[in-house]
């Protein structure tokens, strides 16, 4: 008798699938059936929707009601379908015109009082709707800013079901009381993942990040940081506790170039799904920084959870920095799981409810102490770790993971004059970021006709054959290779870093001193190559 349809979006990882919500009313004993692979929270939608409709002044049809979600094979979960279910039911009972809602994409959770509550993952949902050709979306008012980031879609932010019904029927729109300024909005709770809010280190910093000028000394590490940012090279910081490894890593996102529009959308989509997007500031414009604790499990690093996988640390660090402090303390399994995202730029996670591909292109910074007590190699500090323990500790990081790290620097303990400001101060972040941006532009111009944008992405073979270094520049590196001190892959890495250093220095191709510095940064062995950062650029 009565039939209506509306659309909503199911999230699979950070990608959306448009779901058609169909409501059908038949004469018979009053009942409400929801079909189409709903999970527990979606089944509960039946009760929420009924209460909301009644409390919004509507009438609940006393007939046999069936709501189907199709495609029926895609697993669906969460409360974001409430709004679409309610509207489909109201359409079927002709409270609103079924034609009007047929092409609307509706996203939102309903409160029993009739209010529309925000849900996570609005941005990827709206992106999916736009890609599927839908032009009109209705979202909770708090997330309208997030939805408006998607171009070519008209967004309606609603505060309650009553408002939406009025808009669709061309009736005067009732005003809902806004939350008074200064009081926390209880509705925003739905946007934040419990335990993922501000202060947990997962949410992006809203204030300006820390500045490089605060770091005392550490000229070699500063150079490495600059090179890492300019070429997208993974970095390993080695040194005793308290030398400033974490300080340096925290300042890396500030040195990275700001995100492009496309990158911003990717990052925002992931953060939206993870529930760590700050409500007032929907678009993430700066590279994110994610520093999981070393007790992190493999699931929390690469993504996982019951049912459909949720983004892990590698995805939260997408287009930003993933910092693993005390790397040897991480479980071997968790570290090995990083290999796929490092190689592919995304991670594929399989769970019972399906396989999900999450973006994970990040700059990795590893930090490690020289031994379990951290005092090994330091003069007169009395490290009592036996050699075998030191060796075991360092061996936890061997193999394929370290192979992907282009830069290895020793972070020396800060000396008194640097710390007390007697030494010269380092450059502020803005100056270094300027040089990094210029170097990235040089690299991008050189790589214009290739699929790559930064030096770290260029395969070794291409690097060796397509672009040549200055004559004789590779002498030292080749000599090391002959002696077995450098592997063939190591030579490729040196070459890659050398190109970045040349980009930073404004050389057309790597000069001998560029390769020497690259060799020094790659192997961690000092070769007397001048490390000019902090004084006036490369």
């Amino acid at each position, binding site marked *: 008798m009565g039939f209506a349809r509306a659309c909503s979006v199911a999230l699979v990882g950070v990608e959306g699938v448009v779901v058609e919500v169909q409501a059908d009313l038949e004469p018979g004993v009053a009942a409400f059936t929801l079909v189409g692979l709903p999970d527990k929270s979606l089944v509960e939608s039946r009760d929420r929707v009924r209460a909301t409709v009644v409390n919004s002044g509507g009438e609940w049809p006393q007939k046999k009601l069936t709501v189907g979600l199709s495609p029926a094979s895609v697993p669906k979960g969460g409360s974001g379908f409430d709004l679409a279910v309610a509207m489909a039911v109201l359409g079927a009972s002709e409270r609103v015109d079924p034609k009007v809602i047929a092409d609307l994409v509706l996203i939102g959770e309903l409160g029993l009082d009739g209010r529309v509550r925000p849900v996570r993952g609005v941005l990827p949902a709206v992106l999916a709707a736009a890609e599927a050709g839908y032009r009109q979306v209705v979202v909770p008012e708090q997330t309208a800013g997030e939805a408006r980031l998607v171009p070519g879609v008209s967004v309606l932010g609603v505060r309650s079901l009553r408002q939406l019904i009025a808009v669709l029927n061309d009736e005067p729109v009732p005003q809902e009381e806004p939350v008074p300024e200064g009081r926390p909005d209880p509705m925003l709770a739905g946007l934040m993942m419990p335990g993922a809010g501000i202060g947990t280190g997962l949410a992006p910093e809203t204030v300006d990040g820390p500045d490089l000028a605060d770091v005392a000394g550490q000229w070699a590490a500063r150079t490495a940081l600059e090179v890492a940012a300019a070429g997208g090279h993974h970095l390993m910081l080695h040194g005793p506790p308290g030398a400033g490894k974490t300080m340096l890593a925290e300042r890396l996102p500030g040195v990275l170039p700001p995100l492009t529009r496309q990158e911003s959308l990717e990052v925002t989509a992931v953060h939206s799904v993870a529930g760590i997007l700050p409500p007032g500031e929907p678009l993430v414009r700066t590279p994110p920084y994610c520093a999981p604790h070393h007790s992190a499990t493999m699931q929390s690093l690469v993504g996982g959870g019951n049912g459909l996988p949720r983004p892990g640390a590698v995805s939260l660090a997408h287009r930003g920095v993933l910092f693993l402090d005390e790397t040897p303390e991480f479980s071997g399994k968790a570290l090995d799981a990083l290999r796929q995202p490092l190689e592919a730029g995304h991670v594929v996670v399989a769970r019972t409810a399906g396989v999900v591909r999450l973006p994970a292109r990040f700059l990795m910074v590893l930090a490690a102490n*020289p*031994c379990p007590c951290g005092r090994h*190699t330091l003069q007169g500090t009395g490290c009592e770790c036996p050699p075998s323990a030191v060796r075991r500790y360092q061996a936890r990081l061997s193999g394929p993971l370290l192979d992907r790290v282009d830069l290895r620097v020793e972070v020396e303990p800060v000396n008194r004059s640097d710390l007390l400001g007697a030494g010269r101060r380092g450059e502020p972040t803005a100056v270094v970021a300027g040089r990094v941006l210029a170097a990235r532009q040089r690299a991008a111009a050189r790589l214009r006709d290739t699929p790559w944008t930064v030096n770290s992405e260029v395969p070794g073979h291409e690097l060796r054959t397509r672009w040549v270094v200055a004559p004789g520049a590779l002498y030292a590196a080749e000599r090391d290779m002959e002696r077995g001190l450098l592997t063939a892959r190591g030579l490729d890495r040196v070459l890659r870093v050398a190109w970045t250093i040349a980009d930073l220095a404004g050389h057309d191709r790597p000069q001998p001193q560029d390769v020497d510095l690259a060799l020094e940064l790659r192997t961690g062995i000092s070769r007397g190559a001048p490390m000019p950062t902090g004084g006036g650029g490369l």
Partner: protein
Amino acid sequence: MPGGGSSVGDDERIARAALTRVFEPGDEHGGRWLAEMGPLELLARLTTPGPDDVPLPGASPRRVASYRIRAAAADPLRDLEAVASFGGRFICPGEGEWPTQLDDLGDARPVGLWIRGRPDLRKWALRSVAVVGARACTPYGAHMAAGLGSGLAERGWVVVSGAAFGVDGSAHRGALAAGGATVAVLACGVNVAYPRGHTELLGRIAEQGLVVGELPPSDHPTPSRFILRNRVIAALTRGTVVVEAEYRSGSLATARSAQRLGRHTMGVPGPATSGLSGGVHELLRGEAVLVTDADEVAELVGEIGELAPERRGPVLPRDVLDPLSARVLDALPATGAVDGVRIARDAGVTPDEALGRLYELQALGFVERHGDGWQLTRTAVGRSNARRGGP
């Protein structure tokens, strides 16, 4: 039996093989008795059953009893068979392959040596250097050890070390990578892979070089055996290079025993802040010689005339100017042109002399003339002495 040109009888060889099971490495009592009564007589006294009526001089009954227990358990024929089964051999003093440098150890000379690998130990040891150092070394230590290993191997030197983790392993690997010769001296049986992680490395050394040990096949290492093994490394080689060692380090024991034996001791310096280089620096403050690469090691331990290339910075065109011209050149500012009178004043010479020098410098391409003024050329500015503290 291998070891051609042997002047040692089979009985004596078998007796010595048995005695390697009886005496711990470096047992000076054992060495003295061996020198006094020969291996056959010594073994006979230790294996004769019944009350000890022929006591060993200077040994308490308790000590003799412990030797007897070991001697009774020794089965030299089985050991010799075992070593032959993996292509090894046993050599003892007096044989053609015995490295006579070991005689410098006096009573602590090894009873005999078990060997895996084909080359002749005596010939190799004549031109060998030991490279030893910390097990838990830094990347710098590993790099230097590998560089020394390959550099020495390229110059035809045999690299001797202890096959431990860290510096030792890197030195062996460096020599192997250069296709050179290397000898591992173990503190256990030569068929025992210790450390376990170096099983593959030891296999390669046995294939391409030599694995040597005082202890009979399948014997296991103990802490004291490592220290005693070091004296063999020191005695076998012409000199010992220490790469990274703490104050309390077995590598320093090697260096000290090399010093006692009159061999060269050398050290590779590290950062002054590194505790891992502390022992080396202490050594260098004493009698050891500072070395930075294989050339310098070869110069020290090599034959007369085997010199390292002379080390110096590049000669710049400026360096060969005569002092007066150099003074005039220094008086020119880095940018802009100035007239000859001012240059003469700044250089402290007469204007005529300055002018003469300026024309000379112009001909050499250091300066160029702009009307009345003189200016440094671009190349002259670029090649300044900035790295030597110049302006």
